[in-house]
């Protein structure tokens, strides 16, 4: 591998890594506050991608703008998920919680297939197309835009959680929900918010991905599995961990894909196994 190529691969890995990071921040936020893994996270992403696609196909709104619609839209989806489903199983056994979000995942995937068919779609002429060259390294413009958008969104979530009163209330709820309730925090509101913000993260990520990725009902699965790995690597519940983890997994996936495309996900899963073997709390985990 020539140095040029190496730089190229590393840059591609980091660019997609920022998007993984945003998806994983959403997942880790829900997990941190709720102690529930959202197995429908990938399907939320798929919904956002389809929303961006239809806004483009029907109203000619480019994803650069529709990202501002997809984020809030998925916020609503997250809130509804909590209000209609999760609220009722807060104290149910873990199995029931797993199956609830699994059922949601199956439902959304097949609903998308029912409504829009199983075909692969794509945004044919994005506003930001083509590529730019910097010092002999090529950047796909949509990928760069997606990475920038993802960094901005991740930064916003970070500030919200660590720099505001609301964020401190969220943190307190994730620390110990009973004590938080005793301190006068409306935990039900925090749960709703966690689902809303967590889903809004994939809402933004989905719109950004739609600029350069195929859109189809099954698209969520591979991103979901990747984000579980990222979250485990970063430490369940840690926003910083999810960010760093996203970058690492982005790099690992692109480098592995470059060496052997067929086995690129295998390498990602092996990273997961290595993490749970040697550092089960992840890089920034709390326990």
């Amino acid at each position, binding site marked *: 591998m020539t140095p040029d190529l190496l730089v190229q691969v590393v840059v591609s890995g980091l660019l997609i890594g920022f998007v993984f990071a945003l998806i994983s921040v959403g997942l880790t936020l829900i997990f941190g506050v709720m102690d529930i893994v959202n197995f429908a996270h990938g399907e939320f992403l798929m919904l956002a991608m389809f929303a961006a696609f239809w806004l483009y196909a029907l109203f000619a709104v480019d994803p650069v703008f529709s990202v501002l619609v997809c984020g809030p839209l998925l916020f609503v989806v997250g809130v509804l998920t909590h209000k209609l489903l999760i609220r009722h199983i807060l104290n*149910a*056994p873990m199995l029931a*919680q797993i*199956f609830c979000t699994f*059922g949601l995942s199956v439902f959304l*995937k*097949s609903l998308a297939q029912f409504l829009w068919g199983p075909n692969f779609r794509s945004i044919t002429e994005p506003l930001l197309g083509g590529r730019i060259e910097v010092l002999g390294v090529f950047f796909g413009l949509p990928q760069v835009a997606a990475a920038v958008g993802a960094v901005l969104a991740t930064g916003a979530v970070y500030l919200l959680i660590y720099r505001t009163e609301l964020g401190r209330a969220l943190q307190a709820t994730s620390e110990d929900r009973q004590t938080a309730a005793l301190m006068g925090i409306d935990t039900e509101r925090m749960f709703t918010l966690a689902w809303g913000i967590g889903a809004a993260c994939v809402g933004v990520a989905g719109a950004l991905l739609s600029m350069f990725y195929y859109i189809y009902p099954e698209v969520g699965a591979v991103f979901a*599995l990747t984000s579980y790995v990222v979250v485990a690597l970063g430490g369940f519940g840690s926003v910083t961990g999810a960010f760093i983890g996203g970058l690492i997994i982005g790099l690992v996936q692109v480098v592995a894909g470059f060496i052997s495309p067929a086995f690129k996900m295998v390498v990602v*899963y092996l990273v997961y196994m290595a993490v749970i073997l040697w550092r089960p709390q992840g890089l920034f985990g709390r326990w």
Partner: protein
Amino acid sequence: MVRGKLLPAAALGLLLLGLIVFPLVVTLPYPQHVMILIFLYAMMGLAWNIIGGYAGQVSLGDATYFGIGAYTTVILLRDLGLSPWVGMAVGAVNAVIVSVILGYPCFRVRGHYFAIATIALNEIVATIFTNWEYVGGAVGIYVPILPESFVNLQFHRSKTPYYYIALGMLIGVVLLNVWVGRSRLGYYFRAIRADQDAARSLGIDITRYKLIAYAMTAALTSLGGSFYSMYVLYIDPTSVFAFSISLLVVLVAVLGGVGTVAGPVIGSIILISLSEGTRVLLGGTGRALDVAIYGLLVMAISVLQPYGIVAWIRGLRRPPKTREVKVAGPAA
């Protein structure tokens, strides 16, 4: 207590008789096919019940062992001409070996971490088989067609022999579950499920007993895979290592009630009838409406009846506080 035991025994006897007579009365292939699927998934739900129900470890990767059973059986038949029954036995041994190798790292973690690890490992195994030319790669393998016989485990004119074989396997797995539930092993498993730290402090080697439970699950699941390969006569990585198999196996158990023997059987009857029913009524459009309804149902069950049907039936007779099917996990 004699009266209390006589009635269920009589009911069970009648049920068994009904099941034996069924294919003689209903000779149409489709109803028999549905029954065979019910037996197959009840059997695999019961297999999962050992690791997931008794020992409380939520494995979501059982398709790994289903696939190993199927591939072992088909390859031994294709390359060495060995009877599928031999393949079934070797497949079970392979499944046990793989389950110990994969289970050892996985059992260092619990809860969601364990569940996701089993999914990841299933994906790894599926990718290996997809890229492995000797086992047919992504194309899969057509099972060599042999003359009809019990030894060859192939029957081309009627599904009835498959029906009886599946029923026999199910009865075997039911008996094994009853035995595990009553044995010392079962107490160890349940102790691990209730509180594995407490179980360890009582001197139970928890990793060892989790591995034993997992190996039993793997072996029984692989039997299902071997049977499936001879029933369908074609296997490929996407069909036998499918995540949907892992999911359905667990759903069957969760719907019926984890950690009970009747649960997975009831769950299989309901879920297979529903999925076949919605498929017949709504399927065929290729637009997955049947699967969407199925997903809705899964959500509804988990919200309305998180402890399963068996617990619900018991709850009708007892105050709800004595619900015993509580799988360890983060509560409040």
